[in-house]
């Protein structure tokens, strides 16, 4: 079957922070920006990525509300829920719609409003994605799964709390250059790890993970518009192609994995995206990885194929993943600095990559970036979407 090429013609984003707007408006605002960016309002279909509307905001059928508030009716619209990988899944679905020839121009917007409830309730809402009988009843949360995984990684590969703190400092300080990021507070290794106050500033959330190893709970939205080559040709923006998509799943309960230090769904989704794009990890100039916890940036950088297994923390030590390094990762601030409104995160990753490949990222621009990559990590690695992008002209 012949598939059509798919291009990104418009992008938009809100500030990631606490937002006092209805969920549907958090989804619609970046969509308006993206239509302005693309210079078109001719949208054939709308996909809305969201995880918690029904549970946290008591709003279901979100896509119907968003398509109407944007006055895009009677275009088709649906909500896509795939946990914290909802955004990546929605982009992949939009890609399929254009690639197949079903639609020429589709809008993919993602939004979450998690700060409507307190932090503990927000964490518990995300924890409902764990196995109900084998994990959730015990009080298992995403931070606790990440913590148990981190301990194994430390023992097997020599990752230390210092490496985790280095990721936190790199990403949270990168967010200082991103006006839309949630955290605009400069931190240092001294302040979060070495000083006498560090244990107070940076207590354990789930030992060995500390407060600054975890992303904040955020509200926010982000949007991309995807189009066929013909439709993209009518838009006067630098042309970025969505060159490859990959997705893979793993066991629902984390304890069932054969090697508990593997993130096989990341490895498989990344390999699939690279293969479909005709690229290799060495081709990538800039990547946005799903650092909901600092350990995840290190391990995803290995499982995506950028560094050998067990050596991600060494690349971090050498500064290769910082802005100016060989492969800058999360120059947007990542989930750690930009924030993590779950349904919007996958879209925010794509927003950053397109921004970078267009060469419009200002102070945080990765020099000569032509190939970009995203990894959107759902569950604790049980559902992962990876995307590869190329600058075309």
């Amino acid at each position, binding site marked *: 079957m012949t598939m059509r090429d798919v291009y990104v013609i418009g992008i938009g984003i809100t500030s990631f922070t606490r937002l006092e707007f209805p969920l549907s408006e958090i989804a619609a605002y970046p969509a308006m920006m993206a239509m302005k960016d693309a210079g078109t309002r001719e949208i054939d279909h709308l996909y809305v990525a969201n995880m918690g509307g029904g549970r946290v905001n008591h709003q279901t059928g979100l896509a119907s509300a968003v398509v109407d508030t944007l006055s895009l009716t009677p275009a088709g619209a649906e909500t896509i829920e795939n946990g914290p990988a909802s955004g990546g899944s929605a982009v992949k679905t939009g890609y399929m719609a254009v690639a197949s020839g079903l639609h020429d121009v589709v809008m993919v917007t993602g939004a979450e409003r998690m700060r409507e409830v307190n932090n503990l309730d927000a*964490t518990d809402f995300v924890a409902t994605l764990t196995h109900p009988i*084998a994990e959730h009843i*015990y009080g298992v949360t995403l931070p606790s799964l990440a913590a148990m995984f981190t301990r194994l990684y430390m023992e097997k590969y020599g990752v230390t709390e210092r490496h985790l703190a280095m990721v936190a400092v790199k990403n949270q300080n990168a967010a200082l250059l991103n006006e839309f990021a949630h955290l605009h507070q400069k931190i240092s290794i001294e302040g979060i790890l070495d000083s006498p106050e560090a244990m107070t500033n940076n207590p354990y959330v*789930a030992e*060995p993970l500390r407060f600054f190893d975890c992303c904040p709970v955020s509200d926010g939205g982000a949007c991309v518009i995807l189009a066929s080559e013909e439709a993209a040709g009518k838009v006067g923006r630098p042309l970025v192609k969505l060159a490859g998509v990959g997705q893979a799943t793993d066991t629902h*309960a984390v304890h069932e994995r054969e090697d508990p230090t593997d993130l096989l769904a990341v490895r498989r989704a990344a390999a699939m995206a690279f293969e479909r794009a005709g690229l290799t990890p060495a081709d990538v100039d800039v990547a946005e990885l799903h650092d909901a916890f600092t350990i995840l940036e290190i391990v995803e950088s290995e499982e995506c194929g950028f560094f050998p297994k067990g050596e991600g923390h060494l690349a971090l030590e050498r500064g290769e993943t910082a802005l100016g390094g060989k492969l800058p990762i999360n120059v947007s601030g990542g989930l750690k600095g930009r924030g993590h409104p779950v349904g919007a995160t996958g879209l925010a990753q794509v927003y950053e990559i397109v921004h970078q490949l267009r060469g419009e990222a200002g102070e945080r621009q990765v020099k000569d970036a032509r190939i970009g990559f995203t990894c959107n990590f759902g569950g604790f690695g049980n559902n992962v979407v990876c995307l590869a992008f190329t600058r075309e002209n």
Partner: protein
Amino acid sequence: MPRDIYAYKCRKCGHVHYPYRMVCKNCGENEHNEFEPVPLPKEGTLLTFTTLYSLPPDFEVPSLGLAIVALTNGITVTGQHRIDEPETGMAIRGEVEIVRRDGYDEHYGMVFYKA
């Protein structure tokens, strides 16, 4: 009478699953209920653990020990632990106790102690 947590043994190939799944991961057996419940052993080895300080709202304790354990039959399970100085690789024994109260519901699960 001591309670048990059950694993599910495929009646076709003998593969043991925990938690329950509807189709055998090993042989693909697809007939409903072709699994035999078998009690999980109570002894094993601590694979990894954490102490969680940021707890779901219905836990009225300051911190909670969580662990993944390899049981003597090779099955791995997640549970709570009540071990003062846990170390990976240490021998543990499990008890089935109430692990969560949510409204009027009491949930039973595996709690691990030093063997």
